[in-house]
Structure formats: structure tokens, C-alpha cells
């Protein structure tokens, strides 16, 4: 199997704190992988390492087989990146941004970028500071897609968007990725949205990888119980919205058969709880 994005023993330390430690992941080509975790889990660090913005302290990242820190030019040519905050030039119009991308990136497809923007009725003549947050995110995505890169790295682009804008954004993303056969790594807090858009789930907590499975496998591999019969099967315990303590357990032949299927949110919360010392409230990531 070929991988669009790989991390091998990836570690990143900021002074004394490790943002990422010994992370091994491999994102299959053509997949849309959700990168989920609480603040400070290392999601942005991992994505920035993929764009060559962060130098790994240990290990390495490969984007379409290229190490961005060793060969940034080749790696960037493989990547379309959407940063966390819209990083548009407020003095420039949307069309200026398309021109800017043409001048900066050989092979940039302005027609594709303009078509995406047109689809969303984003006026090309508007200045970036006249656009809503959702429109700015869409411009960022259109520029990343116009690069026609085989790998898309999206660093929490949904964070500041309303539900409708999030849905539109994900719709455009999924459409484009399916059409081009690209690989996407999308970091997000919003689990309900990624459930519809993504086919893989990668959970980071405390700088470590906690889960790396397809969404279907993640759901099939876990269930929720109020009390766990076998402590070994318990992934993590957290408080329900009612204040009840509930546990995410692994489905196994010897494990509990009672309880109910877990939702994706519960899978994530269970693994995050396992990665923390204190209990996780269900509402944290909702």
C-alpha cells in the first residue's frame, strides 16, 4: 500500500515540553483521515512538520515519500495546505490571491481555484477582509486545491466556522479529494462533521498516538458499558452528560457483551480519557 503521509518515530520538543513523541502513522493514499485530539495534542505540530514549517526533534515525516525538512521544495510541491487561521492578505482581493498563487507555484491551476470559488458564490473582486470567516476558509481551501497537490494537509480549518459553513467546506473537500484521488489529513475538534467526511480516524493525546483505524473499524472495535467487567478491556472512562461514569471497552471474544455500540465521539473520548490522568467530560469535544 502507498502512503500519502507518514510519520516515523516523530517527536517534537519545544524547550522542555514534548508536543509529539514517538508517533508512527501511515495515511493511505486516497483516504481522508481525521486527526483528532484536544488542544496541545500535537495535531498542528504534525501537520506543520508535513509542510516543513517545523523541524522534527526525532524521527521524520514523509509527504508522498519526500521528507519536507530535507527537500522542502519537492515536498511543498506535493502539498496543499490550509492553515488554522485564514492567512489571507487583507489588502488583496480573492482574485489577487489566485494570481499570487500562480506567481508562487509552478503548475497552479487558476481555473480550478476560480471554479471552486464560483461554485460557492465567493466574489473574486472582494477584498479578503470583506469576506466572512467561512468564505476566507473556502478561499484557503480553493488555493490549496488549485495547487493540484496529491496531499492535502488541513490544520483545523473548521474551528471558527458555523455549522453550515463547516458542511460546505467539507463538501468541497470531499468532492475534490474524490475527484483527484488525493490524500487528505484533516485536523479537527468537531467529531460529528468528520464522521461524515472522513474514512479514517487518528487520535492524538498528550503528543502520542492513541488510535489509528478506519472509521468503520473504530466503531466496530468498541462498545460502551456503564461498568466494565474486565478491566483489561477498558480503553477509558469518562463522564456522560448526565454525570454518570461510562467506559469505552474493546470488543473482544472474552470481553463484555452487554452495553451498546459506541458512537465515534465516544470512541474518541474514551481514547482521550485513556491518554489523560483526569476524567474527560463528554461535553469537552462536542
Amino acid at each position, binding site marked *: 500500500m502507498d502512503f500519502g503521509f507518514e510519520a516515523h518515530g516523530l517527536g517534537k520538543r519545544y524547550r522542555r515540553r514534548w508536543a509529539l513523541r514517538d508517533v508512527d502513522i501511515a495515511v493511505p493514499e486516497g483516504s481522508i483521515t481525521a486527526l483528532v485530539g484536544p488542544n496541545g495534542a500535537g495535531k498542528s505540530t504534525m501537520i506543520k512538520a508535513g509542510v516543513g514549517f517545523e523541524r522534527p526533534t526525532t524521527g521524520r515525516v514523509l509527504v508522498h515519500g519526500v521528507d519536507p525538512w530535507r527537500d522542502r521544495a519537492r515536498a*511543498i510541491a506535493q502539498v496543499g495546505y490550509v*492553515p488554522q487561521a485564514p492567512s489571507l*492578505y487583507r*489588502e*488583496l482581493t480573492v482574485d489577487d490571491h489566485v494570481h*499570487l498563487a500562480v506567481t*508562487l507555484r509552478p503548475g497552479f491551476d487558476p481555473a480550478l481555484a476560480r471554479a471552486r470559488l464560483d461554485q460557492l458564490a465567493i466574489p473574486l473582486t472582494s477584498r479578503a477582509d470583506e469576506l466572512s470567516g467561512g468564505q476566507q476558509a473556502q478561499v484557503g481551501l480553493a488555493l490549496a486545491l488549485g495547487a493540484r497537490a496529491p496531499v492535502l494537509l488541513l490544520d483545523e480549518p473548521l474551528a471558527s466556522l458555523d455549522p453550515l459553513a463547516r458542511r460546505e467546506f467539507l463538501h468541497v473537500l470531499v468532492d475534490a479529494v474524490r475527484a483527484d484521488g488525493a490524500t487528505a489529513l484533516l485536523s479537527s475538534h468537531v467529531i460529528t462533521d468528520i464522521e461524515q467526511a472522513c474514512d479514517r480516524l487518528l487520535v492524538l493525546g498528550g503528543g502520542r498516538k492513541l488510535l489509528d483505524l478506519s472509521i468503520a473499524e473504530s466503531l466496530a472495535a468498541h462498545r460502551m458499558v456503564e461498568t466494565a467487567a474486565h478491566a483489561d478491556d477498558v480503553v477509558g472512562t469518562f463522564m456522560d452528560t448526565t454525570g454518570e461514569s461510562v467506559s469505552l471497552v474493546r470488543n473482544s471474544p472474552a470481553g463484555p457483551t452487554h452495553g451498546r455500540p459506541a458512537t465515534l465521539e465516544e470512541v474518541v473520548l474514551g481514547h482521550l480519557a485513556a491518554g489523560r490522568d483526569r476524567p474527560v467530560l463528554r461535553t469537552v469535544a462536542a
Partner: protein
Amino acid sequence: MTALAAGRITARLHRFELVAFSGLALLGVLATIVIAAELDAVGWTAACSDAMRSGAATPRECEFRINEFYGIVSSRGWIVSGLTGFVPLAAALLIGVAVVGREIERGTTRLAWALTPSRMRWLAQRFVPVLLFVAVIGLVLGAAADRWIAAAEPGIDPANAFAGFGTRGPVLAARALFVLALAVAVGAALGRALPAVMVGGVIAIVGIVGGSEVHQRILRSEAVVIDEATAGPGDLWIDQRFRLADGTLVGWEEIERYDPPPAEFDDTTVWPTLPQVMIGVPGSRYGEVAVREIAALAGGTVVALALTAAIVRRRRPG
């Protein structure tokens, strides 16, 4: 086509600064033309200036004009020298820190650096249009300052005179480009515009003043003896000496030994009586010295640019 588009985008990013400094430069040129024409109209000639410098009797036609001439110089001259001297350096500093520093501060480098496989291409697209703008502003205002020197000091040939050295002509443009390159480097290193203006301003002042001091020392070592009779208003004065009968030169600290002062001074007393000579650099060397200064500033500019390139290549985008 791509270069034009890149230039247009860079111009839009710095639109306010470009418009503001173009306006100030235009004001400087207009002020120079108008005020220099006013000085020319006074009729204060080279002969008047020479008489004033030498302390000889002032020709009668000059006596009536001296107040008017120096009245204009002292009341309005600062407008010209302020605009011509200040605008190129201020433009270089304020635009320079914005080239990389403001982009890092606003986070737009995250977009640009993720789009381009070559950060050097991005830097060139941002820097070259600004470099051209500052060079043009510097050259135009440098030429205006030359015109001002010629008007304010009649008898001086700006191409062969050290008067106003560094604040006029191509040397002014070279200084502005040096400040621009420094400001870009400081902006890239700090990643914030306002602190970069302050730090860049201090470094630019230290760089220019320090560089001038070094150049002055070099010029002192190259100074020659110029007889009073052949000294011109464009020469660079470094020191004064007195020539003894045997040709030996002595300074003020020794003069009393060889030429005792009279017991009493009045308006007619002439002392020292020994012939005076000037230690200096002839104005005819101005062009050569200016080229040397420009070469040194260009060297500093290249070093600052190399530093910027190294920072941009390795830096986080903010």
C-alpha cells in the same frame, strides 16, 4: 507576465507606504525646485560666497542680498534638507520591516510559504519591487539635494564637492538601500513590524554613523596639504596647519612658539601671521570617494540580504 503580476501584488501590499512616500518625495522635489529658484533669484553669487568664506571685504552688491539669501536658507532650507534627507531613509526603514516582518506578524507567510516550493522566489517577488521603489526615491531626492547644495552654496560644483556628503546624490540612494536591506533582515528575524522599526532604526543609525566614522578615518589618512590660495569650497576640511619658513607645518598648539601673539588685539590685528594651509581632501576626489562609499554600502546591503535569505529559508512562518 508573472513578474508583472508579482510586482502589482507587492505594490498593493504596500500601497499606503508607496503612496505616502511618493507624495513626500514629490513634495521634496517641488520644495527644492521652488526654494532653490527663490535663492537663485536673490542674486547671491559665487563671488559673494567666496568673500564671506575668506573674510575679505564683502562686495557692495552682496551686502544687500545677504539677509535675504540667508533668510531663505534658514527659514525654508530645513524643508528641503529634511525631506530629501529623511524620506528615502524613512521609506527604506518602514517598507523594509514590512517586507517579511509584517507578513510573519499577520500570518500570511503561512499561506505564501506553503504555496511556493521556493521561499527565495517569494522573497524576490516581495523585495525587488520595493528595492526599485526605494532606489528611485533615493536617486530622485539625491538629485534634488544636489540641486539644493548648488543653490544654497553658490560656487560649489556638486560633482566636485564634499559639502553635504552622504545626504545627496547617489550616496543617499545607496544609504537608503542599505537601510532597506537592514530593515528587511531585522523584520525577518523579529517577525514583528513595530519592534523591527525600532531595532532596525537603531542598527541603521549605528551602521551609517559607524560607517561614516570609518570612512572619515580613511579620508584623514589620505588627506593632503592644500594651500590657502588653491583651497576650494568643495574641499573636505580635516585640519588646519601653519607653514614655517622652512616649510615645516605646525598646528595651533605650537603656533605661539613660532609666531607669538601680540599683547593686545583690536579689530585690525592679524594673527597668526604665518601662512595657513588646509589639511584636507580636494573636492576633485569627490566622485572617487563617493564610489567607494557606495561600494561599501552595497557590500553591507548584500550581507544584510544574504542574512535575510538565510533567515527566511529556515524560519517558522509565525
